[in-house]
């Protein structure tokens, strides 16, 4: 039997996990607020990870030093945990020269290879294949690395998902597939588009098609995610191949900022549950599962930290992201002529 997460992790690590969850939340809140406070500063489409914090942090807490992380375009949360500069991250989303990708990528296309984050793609499910490719590199070069592939429930209706999981299973690639089931494929509720869901089965059922382990976990509990993903990572590292973990949580913001045509300003509307389907009860239920107050209550009740300790962490995250926003606002826009750089290596 695996050691329960609370014991395996120890106090410092649990506090670290709470801190990362709060940092992600505060970062995403500042992205969201930017659309109101500084209209026009963020272009295109930004997708937030609020609601996913426990799932992201619980999974990444199982990482060993050189393991790689390859998520979808809903990608702000992971690099924050991996140690990417949040200043560079926000500056990228703000289209600035000091951005992580110098203003060439934006919210959907982040890369920070120096922090084990080779890059994301804006095309649904394409990155699942890229993650398996990174795992092929680890296997061929025998680096001992595991690759963490994160993608949404919507991705699992794409051919890339099926083709990649089959081949990853055939080749026993060292990859963990983490299916973040947030109940929505962009604006469409999962009850309208997933055969397993409609039949009342968990989405981890899909693992059976490839004869690999599949498990469903409460993605609002970072410790459960830690346990389940940890086992899958160990299995991958031992050469036993991929697993599929369905991590269930509720996306707290809508898919992205509203799609508008300039000069019409864009911002985040109400969640689709309310905006599209008129279902306030669903959203209230989802909101009640917010992983951050839940984990905070868990850690204060078991004596990991006090209310005052938690508040210190939250204040620090607020101060960090205030600095990040100011840094990004002050950063210059890119030099136009630089647009022809980086086409070819």
């Amino acid at each position: 039997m695996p050691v329960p997460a609370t014991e395996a992790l120890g106090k410092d690590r649990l506090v670290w996990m709470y801190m990362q969850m709060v940092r992600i939340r505060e970062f995403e809140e500042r992205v969201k607020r930017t659309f109101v406070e500084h209209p026009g500063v963020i272009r295109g489409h930004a997708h937030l990870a609020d609601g996913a914090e426990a799932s992201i942090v619980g999974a990444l807490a199982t990482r060993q030093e050189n393991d790689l992380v390859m998520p979808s375009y809903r990608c702000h949360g992971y690099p924050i945990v991996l140690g990417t500069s949040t200043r560079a991250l926000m500056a990228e989303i703000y289209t600035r020269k000091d951005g992580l990708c110098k203003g060439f990528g934006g919210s959907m296309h982040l890369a920070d290879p120096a922090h084990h984050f080779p890059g994301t793609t804006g095309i649904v499910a394409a990155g699942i294949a890229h993650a398996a490719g990174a795992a092929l590199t680890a296997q061929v070069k025998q680096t001992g690395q595991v690759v963490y592939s994160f993608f949404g429930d919507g991705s699992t209706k794409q051919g890339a998902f099926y083709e990649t999981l089959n081949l990853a299973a055939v080749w026993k690639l060292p990859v963990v597939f983490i299916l973040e089931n947030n109940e929505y494929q962009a604006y469409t509720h999962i009850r309208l588009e997933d055969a397993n869901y409609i039949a009342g089965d968990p989405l981890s059922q899909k693992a059976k098609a490839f004869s690999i382990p599949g498990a469903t976990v409460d993605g609002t509990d970072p410790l459960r995610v830690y346990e389940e993903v940890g086992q899958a990572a160990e299995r991958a590292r031992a050469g036993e191949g991929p697993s599929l973990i369905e991590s269930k949580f509720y996306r707290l913001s809508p898919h992205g900022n509203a799609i508008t045509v300039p000069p019409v300003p864009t911002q985040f509307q109400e969640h689709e549950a309310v905006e599209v389907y008129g279902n306030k009860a669903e959203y209230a239920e989802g909101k009640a599962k917010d992983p951050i107050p839940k984990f905070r209550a868990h850690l204060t009740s078991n004596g990991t930290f006090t209310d005052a300790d938690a508040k210190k962490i939250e204040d620090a995250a607020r101060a960090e992201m205030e600095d990040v926003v100011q840094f990004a606002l002050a950063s210059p826009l890119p030099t136009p002529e630089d647009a022809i750089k980086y086409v070819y290596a």
Partner: protein
Amino acid sequence: MAREMMFAEAIATAIGEEMHRDSSVVFYGQNMAMTDRDPFVKKFGKSRVRITPISETAELGIAVGAALTGLRPIVELYMSEFMLVAFDQVINEAPRLRYMSGGQVKVPVVFKAGFGFAAGWAGQHSNCIYHAMMGIPGLKIAIPSTAADAKGLMASAIRDDNPVVYLHHYMLTLDKGEVPDGELLIPFGVAEVKRPGKDVTIVATAWMVKKTLAAAELLAKEGISAEVIDPRTLAPLDVKTIVESVRKTGRLVLVDQAPRHASAAIVIAGEIAEQGFKRLKAPVKMVTALDTSIPYSEPLERYVLPSEEKIVQSVKSVLAAQAAAV
């Protein structure tokens, strides 16, 4: 030293030499490396030489991810049309990731695909789809016409730090040519004058080079001196060599197996219209496939594709034409 070998053997030689030289080169695809007797498996082992299911999106996507993290994959695709199943990876992933990262990453991958198989493969396995890829900044396209070029361009493709679509014209597979031993690197973006001439410039790629050289031979018997240029890579495209030739000959015929608007010819025609217009003594002539799918039956197929006769006729028409108002 050089020795005679077939086009296909020259490609395999380059892959073998590069795999020997660099342990990060891996090679995989469908219906290859099926047994331990496979020569590549024997030499490089089953970790670096693999068989895949019929899963182009996974094959190409995994290659992109592997390239992103330190391997140099070569994916055997057999038919260029099979790339269409996974065109997202070819068009919208491999060539975009470096740019979107602000130059932080590179994607050194080779998508090797056969094309133009004018041997009764009909509508879905004989096409020329390179035009769709020529307009994708970040993506390179190699398109050899001789065994030596096949070897040298493959070696360069593998060493290139960018994604490369390497197009193997299946009608050239068995053609023999002298191929230098050992390292042979043909630089991308450098056209070769396959036959010097002074009356007309003819640009062609792959199988069309062979047909054009045969046509040039016929024309020579009638006292017409044609200069035949093979760009060898469509991206980057060596426009300079073509412009210089047109400055000399004043006449340009573009031979291309693709349908007119999907041809490389139309891109070259545009470049020459801008850069070489004043030197033209006659309008540019494009000898392309007709605007149809490729039909199955031989007389139908022959009717649709460029031929030696069509090239000869087009050259004569260009030589007969007078320049527009001077």
